């Protein structure tokens, strides 16, 4: 359990961060928000690196911040991987790893070899750090953070500094990290696909304030702030029930029905998250005939909201236990006489699948 009630910022500074939240003692919490929202500041405050920090922070029963009294950074059992992690130039890769290992606060089993294997670092151990690629540096930094034996792992956009082509080299290790961690992970991201893939909860920051905090499916499905406008959509936890390899389609089932989704590399039984963008969903009162749309879900209207665009409305449709968002015109809402409780048919043009990683049970 992480009890978080922090305030960062001097009285004279224009930007202040104020966050109150209680994160569970395991699982991955995404810290999400536009740049300048205070995501990195929050992580630095938790690590004990922020100036002018006050409030209360309790991690695994240990008080790290109480009012103005802060436990010094080096006494906090925290694994911190910065956006562009710093490796010590005067040490080789093994030296960087040993640096953390020697200072691990709690003695325990030697995980050096295990972590070197997990992050595929054997061939790099004797290398100088200035000869490493961005992805390699990131892997060294992640292994080093774990050798510290942290009770809380803080990852600040760990793949954003790596070019897209190289990202795939790191993502599998990141998944391994989240699985292996066995401790709460706070993961800063501004990439909604990453959040969908990795996170259990999401903590949304806007201008230094906590805008939303809750389960990923809940927060991303209902949040209406500007940053989500283009990528507004719903997230559904589902399971793969069939594969039609000749069409490259996977059938996924959830409490409200089933969907056929373009997918490859999945197997029957996989736990997945399905992301449906609001703009890919149309509404009808009855199932239309002769349509190219294959995915048809029946539900009831749970909410009709205005959006930033004057012509468009966002309709939340409850489908089984899940929510699906649809972006339709106000005129369509009027001509279909939609209101709360109306029965509708949601026509889903397309959806994206992400394998569930990390610690959530499927």
């Amino acid at each position: 359990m992480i009890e978080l009630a922090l305030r960062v910022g001097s009285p004279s500074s224009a930007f202040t961060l104020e966050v109150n939240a209680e994160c569970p003692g395991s699982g991955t919490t995404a810290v999400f928000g536009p740049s300048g929202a205070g995501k990195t500041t929050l992580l630095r405050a938790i690590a004990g690196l922020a100036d002018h920090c006050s409030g209360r922070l309790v991690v695994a029963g240990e008080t790290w911040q109480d009012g103005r009294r802060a436990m010094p950074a080096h006494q906090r059992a925290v694994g911190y991987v910065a956006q562009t992690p710093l490796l010590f130039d005067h040490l080789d890769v093994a030296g960087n790893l040993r640096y953390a290992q020697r200072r691990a606060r709690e003695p325990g089993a030697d995980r050096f070899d295990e972590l070197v294997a997990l992050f595929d670092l054997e061939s790099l151990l004797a290398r100088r750090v200035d000869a490493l690629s961005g992805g390699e540096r990131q892997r060294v930094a992640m292994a080093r953070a774990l050798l510290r034996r942290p009770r809380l792992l803080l990852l600040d956009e760990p793949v954003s500094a790596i070019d897209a082509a190289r990202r795939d080299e790191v993502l599998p290790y990141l998944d391994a990290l989240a699985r292996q961690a066995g401790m709460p992970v706070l993961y800063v991201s501004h990439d909604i696909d990453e959040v969908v893939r990795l996170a259990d909860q999401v903590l949304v920051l806007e201008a230094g304030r906590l805008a939303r905090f809750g389960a990923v499916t809940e927060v991303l499905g209902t949040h209406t702030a500007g940053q989500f406008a283009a990528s507004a959509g719903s997230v559904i936890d589902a399971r793969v029930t069939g594969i039609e390899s000749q069409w490259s389609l996977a059938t996924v089932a959830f409490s409200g029905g089933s969907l056929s989704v373009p997918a490859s590399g999945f197997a029957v039984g996989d736990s997945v998250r399905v992301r449906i963008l609001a703009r890919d969903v149309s509404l009808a009162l009855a199932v239309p005939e002769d349509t190219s749309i294959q995915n048809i879900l029946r539900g009831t209207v749970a909410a009709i909201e205005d959006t930033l665009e004057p012509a468009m409305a966002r309709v939340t449709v409850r489908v089984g236990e899940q929510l699906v968002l649809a972006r339709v015109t106000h005129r369509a809402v009027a001509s279909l006489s939609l209101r709360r409780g109306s029965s509708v048919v949601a026509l889903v043009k397309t959806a994206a699948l992400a394998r569930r990683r990390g610690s959530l049970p499927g």
Partner: protein
Amino acid sequence: MLGANDIAALWLTAQLALVTTMCLLVIGLPIAWWLANTRSRWRAPVAALVAMPLVLPPTVIGFYLLLWLGPDGAIGGLTAAAGWGTLPFTFSGLVVASVLYSLPFVVQPIENAFRSLGRAPIETAATLGAGPWDRFFTVALPLSMPGVITAAVLGFAHTVGEFGVVLMIGGNIPGVTQVASVRVYEQVESLDYLGAHALSLTLVGFSFLALLALYLLQGARGASAFAREGRQP
């Protein structure tokens, strides 16, 4: 060509420069660290004080040191009361004067090195569990080694090259306070140009070699010549 007094002067100069450089590193490292990291309002006055020897004529520094360290001076009274005697016209007096006079040459390169490190290495070390002393000795110092070596070479060379301060505070006692620069002055005064040449050329050669070594080392920094020194087993 070099007489016994010349050799004695060179030897004394080398001893003085070595002891002074060691004292300067011991004193200069913490001052440089403080100057590079503090946000205290005392930073500017302290930085100005440290830089004073760059501006002041050596005779002015020597004059005040002579007064303060002498039997009637504030510091001289203390050292006399402590049973150490007074420092002017002794080797210890030369060391004190040289340390003060060469302080900016040591503090400034080290301070610049610490400053250019930035906060990231120190913060990274902290999140890996290293306390303040640990961070200083295992991260800040090894990463700043080029600056520290530059500072040591400059401190040493500058001490070899000083004249005014040592003459004021040390006088000209062969074998005790007569360093090479003072010896050359004496030889020129007594029109012994041949002796002055011998000693002067020795100093010219030394200075060139010291600076050459410094620039070669700085040039090799790109290839991390220093960076490897701090490597842990």
